[in-house]
């Protein structure tokens, strides 16, 4: 007699190639964007997402059937997929757009992911992605995907537990002023917050193995999605410069200057 069917998890991890967090951003002279001749890497929140998928497999072993990474980006984005594969993803999809094309808007990304999910023969049970990309800081893709699919969503996750028998995820979320626990029926969209985990560095053997893992190539036309932006970016400019560098010699001077500025003890 077979035991009750435990759903084997198929995890999808969307990842984005973005300017590295350590780069000092410069607005280009034409004020149309920032200087993109800089180091790029996987969006840090997406690294956390890949890491979480890999940790779920380490915890749950064979219950995790597949971890698939997907990215939408120019040819160079394949490096981001290779990083995900080196960290432990099994296979990947590259939706390739031209180098000169503007980054797709969150709604277009969500529609792309929705179409990809529809085409996965084994289905998708968990989508884990970063809560925001550190370039546009929009933080909307996960929620939009959940809306399009009508799925459960758990944003800003700081802890994830999945029960394959009950087919649900118990997620602790970081919210204003504290934390919240939600119980999500699978399939679920989870967006990662900073403290969910600390991503691993891929080892050299894993980096080598990653070169042999599959990368499926697709175009937006293959998926029937229009990437024409709906919003118009009129200008990208520098923020007003903060003039700082003021020094005080000692606490007495600090207290005096604070008092001058109207700040005293309550």
């Amino acid at each position, binding site marked *: 007699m077979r035991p009750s069917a435990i759903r084997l998890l198929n995890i999808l991890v969307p990842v984005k190639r973005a*300017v590295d*967090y*350590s780069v*000092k*951003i410069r607005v280009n002279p034409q004020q149309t964007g*920032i200087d993109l001749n800089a180091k790029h890497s996987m969006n840090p*929140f997406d690294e956390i997402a890949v890491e979480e998928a890999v940790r779920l497999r380490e915890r749950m072993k064979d219950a995790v059937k597949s971890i698939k990474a997907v990215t939408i980006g120019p040819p160079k984005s394949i490096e981001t997929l290779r990083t995900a594969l080196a960290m432990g993803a099994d296979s990947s999809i590259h939706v390739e757009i031209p180098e000169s094309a503007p980054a797709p*808007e*969150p*709604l277009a990304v*969500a529609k792309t992911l929705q179409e990809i999910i529809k085409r996965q023969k084994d289905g998708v049970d968990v989508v884990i992605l970063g809560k925001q990309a*550190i*370039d*546009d*800081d929009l*933080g*909307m893709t996960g*929620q*939009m*995907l*959940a*809306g*399009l699919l009508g799925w*459960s*969503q758990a944003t800003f996750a*700081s802890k994830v537990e999945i029960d394959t028998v009950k087919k649900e995820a118990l997620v602790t*979320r*970081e919210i*204003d*002023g*504290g*934390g*919240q*626990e*939600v*119980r*999500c*029926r699978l399939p*679920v969209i989870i967006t990662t917050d900073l*403290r969910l985990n600390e991503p691993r560095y891929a080892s050299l053997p894993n980096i080598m193995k990653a070169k042999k893992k599959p990368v499926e190539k697709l175009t937006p036309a293959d998926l029937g999605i229009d990437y024409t932006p*709906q919003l*118009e970016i009129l*200008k*990208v*400019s520098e*923020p007003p410069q*903060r003039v*700082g*560098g003021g*020094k*005080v010699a000692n*606490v007495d001077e*600090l*207290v005096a200057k*604070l008092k001058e*500025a109207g*700040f*005293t*003890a*309550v």
Partner: protein
Amino acid sequence: MLRTRSIISARALSRSYATATPPHALVFLEHRQGVLDSGSLSALTAAEQLGGKVTGLVIGAPEHVQGVVDKVKNLKGLTSILHSTSPQYSEPIPETVSPLLEKLLSDSPPFTHIVSATSSFAKSLLPRVAAKLNSPAISDVTSVEHDSSSNSTTFTRPIYAGNAISTVRAPSSIPIKFFTVRGTAFAAAQSHDASEAQSSPLEPVEVTNSPTDHVNTSLTKSDRPDLGVAGRVVSGGRALKDAETFASTLHPLADALGAAVGASRAAVDAGYADNSLQVGQTGKVVAPELYVAIGISGAIQHLAGMKDSKLIVAVNKVNPLSTPLDIYLRPIKDSDAPIFQVADLGLVADLFEAVPELVQKLKA
């Protein structure tokens, strides 16, 4: 899905040929168990700046909604109020609230803009609703300008951790414009004596088979001012050694100044402070009158969360080099720490001596 798309396009076409209609914003006025969220008051100010009517939406449990409606009806900028009551809204989650908004926004709604604060709840809800309506959304806007003749709205918003500002226009082809608002960029709407906003009830949309259940919410209790709205903030970094030292060093200063307490990511990661105290690109963005950074070096991501503060004070020490080799391990002196580049009053000193001295002399 295709049918919805063509309905929206038809509506967009008819709108662009119609004469300029003034905007009508729906503002989500959030509260926690009856206590109004100040971020929503900033969202109301932003909605008013669009230049047309503003309807506030209040949802919640039966015991809280009327109290909130009473508190908001005199707010400047509010034209009318819709309120919806249900036990399901007492601990609202996007899955149970989205159907209400979808219903409100279906069938030729009067609303042209949907506005909220960038609260954890609204950030989770608005994009979900926007996507269901096949609409883009914009988050964390710092300015808003609507042009009725072209039915387009232009926003500014920070990108790359606030190191660049993007000016974005949502044209008339987007019939309903969803956006969340950065609280520090818009003054909180005030009450005024002029006419009260009329309020009407809205039938809740009961969700019988929600895929998600709220299990538990736990908020850190504090007598201190709330970090998000405090006029003064004392913030601590990694140099504060551990949780007890963080508290024992910073709390007396915060108490003396009547300030809220914040923390850098490094301090939160190390367990010195709760994650709800994190100030930064992905934590809270604050712009108080006074921001005191203690033992914080000033990473780009931290600066992103506090560089709009009116007056910035920094206290950080120079680490004495114990061996000549340390100059290779730690070539950057803390007196050169990035925080000093944005500080108006920078004190290079041992914080464990300077902070108690500061507390004592402030109180003298």
